[in-house]
């Protein structure tokens, strides 16, 4: 149970896996209704769904607008999503870390 790779390599490899899944595998994903949507259809409340306010956005529905090839449109949307999610989450935690006051940081140092 020892680390085998550096943190940098781990992060890069995990990000690469996420991008491969989002670009190459997500276009093959099942397009059947998901569990909740199937239940909504079967139980007769799916018609209550309102159109999403951002439904005309450039990447709405996991497809980049204007890309003719459906698989490519989905794959590119996946890449955009992985990149944006990494940036937003990383940014959020950077900000959260900076909200910690210096004296608190010292207090929570070595046990």
């Amino acid at each position, binding site marked *: 149970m*020892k680390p085998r*790779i550096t943190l940098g390599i781990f992060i890069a490899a995990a990000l690469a896996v996420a991008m491969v899944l989002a670009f190459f595998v997500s276009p093959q*994903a*099942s397009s059947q209704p998901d*569990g909740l949507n199937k239940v909504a259809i079967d139980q007769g409340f799916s018609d209550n769904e309102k159109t999403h306010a951002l439904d005309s956005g450039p990447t709405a529905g996991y497809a980049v607008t204007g890309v003719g090839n459906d698989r490519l449109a989905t794959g590119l949307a996946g890449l955009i999503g992985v990149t944006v999610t990494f940036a937003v989450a990383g940014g959020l935690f950077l900000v959260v*870390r900076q909200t910690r006051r210096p004296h608190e940081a010292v207090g929570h140092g070595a046990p």
Partner: protein
Amino acid sequence: MHIPDGFINGGTSAGAGVVAVAALGVSVRRTAEILDEKQVPLAGVVSAFIFAVQMLNFPVAGGTSGHLLGGVLAAVLVGPYMGSLCVAVVLVVQALLFADGGLSALGLNVINMALVTAFGGYLLYLGLRRVLPRTPSGVVLASGIAAGLGVILASFAFTFEYAIGGTGGAAVGTVGGAMIGVHALIGIGEGVITGLTVSSVLAVRPDLVYGARDLVPGLRLGAGAVPATVGR
């Protein structure tokens, strides 16, 4: 399991939004206390990975599909507080960029897919760790089972929300039975993906697995302020 606008009425959705914001605020405060510099990119990559895998809908019985929720996976990797924030980021990006999950339903979706799974599912994980061997295999098995059960917990949460403010007048018992039935199947996929991912991280960087800190003495990452609740 992304709820669109319109399935749950406005008042219930707004109330859920308040609950979600309050709970995420607690997560932010607790995260600020324990966050290690090295965990910033780690949390980013956990979020990005969950986003990618959430795109991979796999077929389950009867013309239905399901995808990973990821709350238990995130909680096992970075702890429930950071983990709930990682999944919440995914849900916000999905709602704003990809029109997946209604804007008014964002609070409901955060409760079901980020909070119930990361906290409820992680409690199940801790319980399972107590009865399973204190080995890497025990960690993988506990993660997988807790992840599968976490999906069922999330479907209970939806049923509860539908009981309070559901539209369309379907019988709550029928909705609940159908939700739990189909999500028990989706939970199998959640469990397999979670187990495989935790197993992979354990193989290369066991010190990065928050839920396995008890197996890696002396290699704790940013865990100085965290009470070790596993196995003590």
